[in-house]
């Protein structure tokens, strides 16, 4: 499809892509267009944008098929490195977490853990899992978005990176008790992925955190 002639209104500027709102047929859609990065060598830049656009669209579709709450793909515009997907109503978890009471926040984290568990069970890792990439619907159901860094993998290492990143964003961006939040998350994860996978993924996540340089071994 060609998204360049669609009437659209800017929605959000992310790190690597611009999001805008448009209408295609009956759908209210989000157009995610990967923009040229001036700092990057042009051939490297083109390659990265092209590869990620195709990979992201196909992975979102696969995640949807597996039952994970994600947007639906409406079309791909390879020429312009853009993806059209259904728009989600709701609030970014990063925004609403700090306004929640501790119990409500724990419930949300458990539900987020469940979604990650479903995703991992489908053989997909997100690769950039932070509270900015979770949209909470008005009914409180979390949707996972931004699959720009995602890959197909069943390696405990890659799954561990997802939980590690989520934990780090909990510690760095929110003033809630991160360990209680992560405990709730891992319970939801275990429910969807099973105890065995949950143990290996969480073990890896802790190992990855320790692997950072100069981390004292205790």
């Amino acid at each position, binding site marked *: 499809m060609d998204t360049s002639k669609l009437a659209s209104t800017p929605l959000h500027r992310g790190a*690597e892509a611009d999001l805008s709102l448009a209408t295609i047929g009956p759908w209210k859609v989000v157009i995610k267009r990967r923009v040229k990065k001036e*700092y990057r060598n042009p051939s490297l830049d083109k390659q990265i944008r092209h590869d990620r656009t195709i990979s992201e669209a196909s992975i979102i579709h696969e995640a949807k098929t597996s039952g994970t709450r994600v947007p639906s793909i409406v079309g791909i515009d390879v020429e312009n490195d853009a993806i059209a997907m259904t728009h989600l109503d709701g609030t970014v978890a990063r925004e609403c977490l700090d306004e929640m009471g501790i119990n409500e926040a724990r419930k949300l984290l458990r539900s987020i853990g469940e979604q990650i568990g479903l995703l991992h069970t489908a053989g997909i890792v997100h*690769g*950039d899992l932070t509270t900015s990439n979770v949209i909470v619907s008005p009914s409180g159901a979390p949707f996972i978005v931004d699959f720009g*860094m995602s890959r197909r993998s069943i390696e405990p290492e890659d799954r561990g990176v997802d939980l590690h*990143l989520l934990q*780090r964003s909990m510690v760095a961006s929110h003033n809630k008790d991160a360990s209680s939040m992560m405990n709730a998350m891992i319970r939801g994860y275990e429910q969807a992925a099973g105890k065995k996978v949950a143990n290996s993924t969480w073990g890896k996540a802790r190992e990855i955190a320790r692997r950072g340089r100069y981390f*004292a071994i205790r």
Partner: protein
Amino acid sequence: MCLGIESTAHTFGASLVDSQDRIVTNVNSTYRPPVGVGIHPRKASEHLASVADEIVRTALSTKDDSSVDPDVIAYAAGPGLGPCLRIGATVGRALSSFLKKPLVPVHHGVAHLDIAMSIAKARDPLAVLVSGGHTSILVHVGKRWRVYGETQDITLGNLLDMFARDAKLPSPGGLSVSKEAAKGENMIKLPYTVKGNDVAYSGLLTAATSALRRRGNLADICFSLQETAFAMLAEAVERSLVQTRRSEVLVAGGVAASSRLKEMIGSVAEDHGASFHPVPVEYSGDCGAQIACSGRLAYESGVTVSTSDSLVIPRWRMDEVDVPWIPRN
């Protein structure tokens, strides 16, 4: 006046910083290993020990040939190479007990950021620390620097040094690689690994050194290595910046001397409406001034250590140090 003593790896440095945060003296000597060889910790420490006396004397002497008595002695307690750290710590302890002045342990990485913030005038930035010992993206939350992104294996300085060593280019590797890169123009495809806000460089090192062994064009390999490695970090910085929404971006550490890296990260900052604060080249590499600058701030926050507890900490993470003096005024 705060005297700072640096001796974490290849450099012995001594510097005086006054109560107005002005660098009064800054004297350094760096051990350079032979081409094709890395830093041997014992050989480096022998160099540091041999120059320590003269460096400290020079740093303490004023223009009219008299000697300054510092009010505080700060030493780099870690992280770094054990044999090297112990040289600086020994000098620090000796001066502190002889002059009867308080002793302050300083974290070398925190010090890189402190001097960069002092000179490049940053208040509460997203900090990018790039050196042989660190490749981290940090923000200050509460009392500490929090790691937002970092390398999952080797540092950027490591990558460039180890590649340069293999390519028989002289130390420091970053400078040699960038000189060669200026002559290259063909982009070779190399592994580009960004995991969330983290980067991983070991695959890139392997691919670049095997391209070298296949007798690829050195300038093109250096060019591609530098473009790929820096773009990875710039992307991780961009992600972190969008998430943390800081309005300042600071770049510090030895690799911050690279103009191409500064160009890339500067472009990221500009793109997201943040001001850009690169450390000046003369204070990017390891030096006494960073320790004096950080030591003064730590002392004013009440940090001191008794001689008997003044240990060195070869492995010491940035996020384990209380840094209550940030945001800076």
